[in-house]
């Protein structure tokens, strides 16, 4: 069997053609199924109220394998295109003017960055969807407290709060190295120093709340799909909140640790003092004085009264020393109790301010009669504290006459908040799907891929992005895997 040259040529051409067709088919198939890199725009919040996205976009790409491109990065736009200092709308216009080269941009904003995204979300540029994470969509009562001047002296409510707390502790060294009030004061001062930009986060119903008012007008609501991530902490602690501000990259809660160390030291000191005081009341100086008197009376002195003067003279210094020592002990107890109350007032006032947008809710819980404080309150009102015997008798009489019915104690109920924004302030209606809750995450933790809330085994934000980026809720947020 042999082939003529012509037939060989035709066969070779056919093989070549079929190979080309095969390559073309494979290429087309690949083109029809290859993911397109998603352009993303990550906008940080203001430095005083946001840690920023930092390495989150990089780690989503390199560790979690999302095929995304951060358009403000090396190879993209310079960082100078995002200028929050211009204000929400001007910063939005500036950024929007640079989007022309990038299609189908997914914007992810934290804090003020989300407001800028909202300023861009009018459907006239290449921004195709936005994620609003910890964004003051309804403004921030906390910011209002921090910067809004009240009264003629121009101080904000937060500055008044700090002054009040410092007045309570004036002359009583409370900081013990933790400087909680100082740290809070420094943060408030930073907010106040940048009042012009932070005023754009004021609630719509506050004087100067123009930006939020404008953004929330019907015509200015996002014209592209939007999603809300909102944070809240189960156990708000002002020390943890401050730690997030001042130690943003630490896994250790230094400020809370310091505060707890102090608190524990104070508690044990109170226990020690109470024990020693009880002992002293029975066996202390006055017991020695009684012993001295007993010795006098058993010595068979015919006129003990004259001996008493000598005895008294010999005891004066001991008594004065004892009185001064008790003064010091009592002053220390006074210091501890005042410092504790002042720190609590700082934390309570801040929490209540965050809840101010809503009515303050109260609840009641049953309390057994044996621990009832109503007798103390009744006696404080009827006899006061400046006669211990009257107070004591009143307490005993009151408790004797009490009915053994458990009474109710009223407590205040906290609204969900992330330490800076309450839940409602972070919401925006019309989202592509229900708001995603970053539980047990404070405002500064909302941008971290590594924050694990409470007892969780895994960080929460990566899961949130996975749910968003897989496109199952809305294709507008789809970010393919590499």
């Amino acid at each position, binding site marked *: 069997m042999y082939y003529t040259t012509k037939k060989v040529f035709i066969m070779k051409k056919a093989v070549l053609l079929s190979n080309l067709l095969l390559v073309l088919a494979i290429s087309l198939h690949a083109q029809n199924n290859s993911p397109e890199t998603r352009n993303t725009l990550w906008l940080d919040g203001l430095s005083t109220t946001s840690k920023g996205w930092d390495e989150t976009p990089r780690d989503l790409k390199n560790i979690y394998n999302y095929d995304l491109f951060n358009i403000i990065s090396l190879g993209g736009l310079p960082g100078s295109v995002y200028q929050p200092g211009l204000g929400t709308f001007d910063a939005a216009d500036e950024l929007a003017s640079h989007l022309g080269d990038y299609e189908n941009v997914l914007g992810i904003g934290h804090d003020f960055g989300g407001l800028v995204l909202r300023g861009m979300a009018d459907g006239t540029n290449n921004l195709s969807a936005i994620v609003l994470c910890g964004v003051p969509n309804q403004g921030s009562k906390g910011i209002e407290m921090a910067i809004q001047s009240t009264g003629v002296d121009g101080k904000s409510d937060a500055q008044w709060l700090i002054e009040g707390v410092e007045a309570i502790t004036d002359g009583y060294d409370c900081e013990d190295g933790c400087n909680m009030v100082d740290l809070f004061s420094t943060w408030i001062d930073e907010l106040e120093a940048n009042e012009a930009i932070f005023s754009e986060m004021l609630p719509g119903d506050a004087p100067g709340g123009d930006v939020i008012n404008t953004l929330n007008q019907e015509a200015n609501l996002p014209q592209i799909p939007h999603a809300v991530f909102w944070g809240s902490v189960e156990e708000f602690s002002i020390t943890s909140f401050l730690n997030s501000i001042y130690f943003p990259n630490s896994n250790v809660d230094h400020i809370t640790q310091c505060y707890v160390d102090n608190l524990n030291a104070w508690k044990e000191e109170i226990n020690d003092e109470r024990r020693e005081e009880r002992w002293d009341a029975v066996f*202390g100086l006055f017991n020695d004085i009684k012993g001295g008197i007993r010795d006098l009376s058993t010595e068979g002195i015919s006129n003990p009264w004259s001996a008493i003067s000598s005895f008294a003279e010999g005891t004066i210094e001991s008594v004065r020393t004892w009185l001064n020592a008790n003064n010091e002990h009592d002053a220390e107890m006074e210091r501890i109790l005042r410092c504790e109350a002042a720190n609590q007032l700082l934390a309570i006032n801040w929490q209540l301010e965050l809840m101010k947008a809503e009515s303050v809710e109260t609840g009641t819980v049953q309390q057994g009669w044996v621990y009832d404080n109503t007798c103390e309150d009744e006696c404080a009102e009827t006899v006061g504290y400046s006669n211990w015997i009257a107070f004591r008798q009143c307490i005993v009489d009151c408790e004797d006459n009490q009915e053994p019915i458990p009474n109710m104690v009223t407590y205040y109920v906290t609204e969900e908040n992330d330490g800076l924004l309450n839940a409602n302030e972070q919401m925006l209606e019309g989202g592509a799907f229900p708001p995603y809750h970053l539980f047990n995450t404070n405002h500064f933790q909302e941008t971290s891929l590594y924050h694990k809330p409470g007892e969780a085994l895994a960080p929460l934000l990566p899961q949130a992005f996975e749910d968003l980026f897989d496109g199952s809720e809305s294709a507008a947020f789809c970010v393919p895997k590499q």
Partner: protein
Amino acid sequence: MRNIHQIKLHYLVCCLIVFQLFSCKKDELTDPEPLEINNISDIEMRDSTALSIEYDIITASYVTPADPSERDLLTDAEKVLGTPKYEGRHVVQMVNDNGVIDADIEMMNFEGMPDYPKKALLGDEIPSAFETDRIEVRAGQYQFYNSSGDKVSTQYQSPEDIAFFNSILSDFREKVMLSNQEMDYMITALEEIGFEAQTSALDSQVEVLEYSFADGRATKLYFDKQLQEIVAREQYDAEGELRFVSGFIHEPSPSGEAPKLVSHHYITFFDSPFSGVKMAIKKSSSIKNLTIQTN
């Protein structure tokens, strides 16, 4: 010369006087039920242990207007401070013969304590990871543990506390009880020392002893002539304002028995810069179910 057994017996009696058992005043009500203790203490009496004490202590802390009729003047935050916060502890404590203590202290919820929900705003919020669930004291070193068993804090028994225990263990003292005549001698001696003495108009068994310092400050002591001990102390500043109160409350016992210690109270004051109301900071404690052993 007393022998060591007599000394220890007297010491036991003295301690029983100092920390007396609490009992309910009403027949139809009883002390809180015995506690469910989650962690059995593993400390035991050793040869070097001089004293073993076990008891429950409940402390209530809250801040209210010194004059409760001014409650309506308070800010919301000040009202929150008025919500009483409770801490209950079960304490097993060994005092060694050098004054250094070993102890196991467990935070407890006692019957009758209010069970606030997590969302309750109380002002003492600490992340649960830092909340003390148990304290172990070994050779004077306090280790604070959270509910997961992680160590959250370390403190040390103060030198003053060690000295205190050293003193009460090594310096034997017996409570002196004076006759009525001797009591009169003592009051006179105290007047000679500089106290102003006045029998309380409300309780003839109590002598109020006031000492005025040169700078205008004053200390007022309440001396119970039946108990023959100081039951309360008040401190006044140079302007005559009451600054601090520390007092023990006893309740009468059936005839023949000494009055029983019920509770202890610390009270101090500050003028609120927010509402202008004079506020009273209160910390009240009661000790219950006390047992004492000597070695």
